[in-house]
């Protein structure tokens, strides 16, 4: 990875992690949606610096959709009944998870290889992989999207009918 891509990678990493922390600490649905959009922009930048242009394009659309969902007026608050001590334990466990994953990455014995280059987007090779070699995985995600959209539509319509 050359210097330009490395700088883009580290800047995108800072943006995505900063956006993630803003998601955790900002109140309100509008600011939370904006924070999700910032984190998504950072993740898209990470994909771009890793020469994963197609994944970056898909992530751009998906994270924009997530941000809109969190900022939408249909957003409703559901307070949890979990005590504060358990939430703090969960936060500490998240820190422990990072320590374990970072240690695994640090101690990993990785082979050095020359990176591939399929162009900026590489959509032709990914299309062949998605619709030929791994068609079952693509269909599974398509089924998940269908179930999610039908379920979301059903619950929204049911709520409007209940008013």
């Amino acid at each position, binding site marked *: *990875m050359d210097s330009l891509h490395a700088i883009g990678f*580290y800047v995108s990493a800072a943006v995505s992690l900063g956006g993630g922390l803003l*998601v955790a600490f900002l109140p309100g649905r509008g600011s939370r949606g904006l924070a999700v959009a910032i984190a998504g922009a950072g*993740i898209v930048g990470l994909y771009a610096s890793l020469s*994963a242009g197609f994944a970056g394009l898909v992530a751009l659309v998906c994270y924009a959709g997530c941000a809109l969902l969190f900022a939408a007026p249909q957003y409703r608050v559901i307070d949890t009944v979990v005590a504060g001590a358990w939430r703090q334990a969960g936060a500490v466990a*998240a820190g422990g998870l990072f320590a374990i994953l970072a240690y695994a990455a640090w101690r990993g014995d990785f082979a050095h290889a020359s990176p591939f280059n399929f162009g900026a987007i*590489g959509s032709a090779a990914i299309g062949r992989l998605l619709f030929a070699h791994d068609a079952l995985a693509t269909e599974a995600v398509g089924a998940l999207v269908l179930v999610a959209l039908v379920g979301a539509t059903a*619950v929204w319509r049911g709520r409007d009918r209940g008013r």
Partner: protein
Amino acid sequence: MSAGLVSVLFVAAALVAVGAFVAAWKRDLTAALAGLPLMFGGAGVAFAGASRFAAAGGSPVFGQEVSALLAVAALALVALGVGIAGRGTSR
């Protein structure tokens, strides 16, 4: 300045941990859903990075494929979760 596989995996681990932190920390369950795309994004970055720096033998675009599928799955799950949350409070 350069970035290798270890750097990518560090960032991916941090994204997954931040997502888990959001899911555990938020008192509002709907807001806790926002940790889901972060965790999926971290996993996707790890896949894309491993694919980018992989040695010969595997398909070099496999990581991109999984990253794209993870992003779509995150959007679908967030849509479903926000929809169910809206349904739950209307009663």
